[in-house]
């Protein structure tokens, strides 16, 4: 399948980002016009190297940016048919858009169960419903049920990532912004986490926008991908098409056209090649 990448994502987006520009501290321009969209019930990946702007894009959407003195200065973000760039993270969680931050960020001194329950902060539908969802989270992550009384600071990295995702689930999200879920985890665990993402997407209809450095895994689970470099989208397309794109293979998947080859054999000028260089 080597059809050309379609220029637009499938119709009926839950999230549309139109040409946003983000400036930190009034001076540092991080995103220079990023546009992307996530279809309702889709899994979309943002790929890119360190500092490409993946996290900033997610934080711009969830508006955690504000707490780091960042600002969306241009463009619009539309979630569920409503412009949201002026809303607080609290408002966004209420509307069903929640971010799972890079590095897991569990509440270290709280038990796993308390961590999960904090995710239900914005809910108003009563204790019974929250308890039911807690059981649902334990069904997806049986390991968390075993460790429910442990302090979250002392559980393993994989369990922390599960806690962080479970915590987000407790808010009954329509969309989860998942930042670098594979960070610091063993390959097997990464696979496990992504399997759960897929399951949540299929059973619960949660849409996902995930930022990843691990392009190989991300492109296997996502349906659509955007590649970010220096604050701009340089390439986008169906996951399948991206996986087969020669440049993506070379820069992000570590595989050349003819299978694996040593970095030493890559010509010097090619090593330094970047789309924007």
């Amino acid at each position: 399948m080597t059809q050309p990448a379609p220029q637009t994502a499938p119709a009926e987006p839950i999230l549309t980002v139109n040409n946003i520009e983000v400036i930190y501290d009034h001076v540092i321009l991080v995103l220079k016009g990023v546009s992307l969209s996530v279809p309702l019930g889709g899994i979309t990946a943002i790929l890119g190297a360190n500092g490409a702007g993946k996290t900033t894009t997610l934080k711009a959407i969830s508006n955690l940016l504000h707490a780091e003195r960042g600002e969306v200065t241009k463009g619009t973000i539309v979630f569920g048919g409503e412009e949201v760039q002026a809303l607080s993270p609290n408002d966004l969680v209420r509307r069903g858009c929640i971010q799972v931050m890079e590095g897991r960020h569990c509440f270290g001194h709280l038990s796993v169960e308390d961590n999960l329950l904090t995710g239900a902060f914005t809910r108003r539908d009563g204790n019974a419903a929250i308890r039911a969802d807690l059981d649902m989270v334990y069904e997806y992550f049986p390991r968390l049920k075993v460790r429910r009384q442990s302090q979250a600071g002392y559980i393993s990295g994989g369990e922390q990532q599960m806690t962080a995702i479970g915590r987000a689930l407790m808010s009954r999200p329509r969309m989860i912004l998942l930042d670098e879920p594979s960070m610091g985890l063993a390959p097997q665990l990464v696979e496990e986490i992504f399997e759960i993402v897929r399951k949540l997407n299929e059973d619960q209809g949660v849409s996902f926008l995930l930022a990843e450095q691990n392009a190989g895994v991300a492109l296997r689970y996502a349906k659509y991908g955007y590649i970010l470099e220096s604050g701009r989208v340089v390439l986008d397309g169906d996951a399948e098409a991206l996986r087969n794109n020669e440049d993506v293979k070379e820069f992000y998947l570590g595989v050349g056209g003819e299978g694996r080859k040593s970095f030493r054999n890559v010509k010097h000028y090619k090593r330094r090649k970047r789309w924007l260089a």
Partner: protein
Amino acid sequence: MDFLNSLLVKPFADMVAAPDFLIQVLWEGIVSGVLYALIALGFVLIYKSSRIFNFAQGIMVVFAALTLVGLHEKGVPALLAVPLTLVVMFILAVGIERVVLRPLVNQPDIILFMATIGITLFLVGFGEIIFGGENKVMITEQLYIPTGSFEFEPFGGFVSIEQKDLTAVIGAGLLVIALLVFLNRSKMGRAIRALGDDHQAALSVGISLSTIWVLVWFISGIIALATGIVWGARAGVSFALEVIAFKALPVLMLGGLESVSGAIIGGLMIGILEKLFEIYWGQPLLGGNTETWFAFVFALFVLLFRPQGLFGERIIERV
């Protein structure tokens, strides 16, 4: 030799010789200890949820007490004046969040600390304009706080427990327990603890900073009122009351700025130790009046060996 004797032997011999007196001293210690714990809790809650060291805690005590007495002077019945004062403290909390904290969000800690000094100055002036600067008497009787005392004769001696103090200890104790239950069992309490652990993550799950801030400032307003009533009943209501909040500083050093249980245990410990030291070591050896400095020196010693305080939250770091 003589000195060593009076330092290491005689005090303990005295304690054993007059156990009734020891009980009296311990009781006095507990009374002030519970109050220190209460004030320290006010500091801890605000620090945990916003990393602000609230310099204004002391003046809030004065302001709450002044409002209560002032309202009563203006003809409001005492039992109605208490809830009204709480309303005032709530409005104050909302005002502080809107006018001071919200515009300063994300600023360095020191700036927020300076802002609480600003709040202090504002409350001093504002309180004086509305209620006048002269000393007032706490409306103890009108609040049905019993006076008089219980007397016991254990070990053939004599112990007297003032009912006023007993009420204070019970009241403060109940308030502390209520706070603990609130922090550990309720949704808002959980959110406060979460905020103390990881600010960013708390934001990301939709915990609303402004709600929590209003809440913790209101709680420390309630604490201020309770402290104001108790201390006002002992020492009168004046701006000098502000100082007692700073007696909570060594408690915080001892207990750690973030630890709720540390504040409680630290408060009781400081209260009891400073009384024991004053009676058994301070008066015979140093000519008395050690209570003003003992707690600070003690806290300093503790910090030498445990910089995070005795009960400071253990820093969890995974390796």
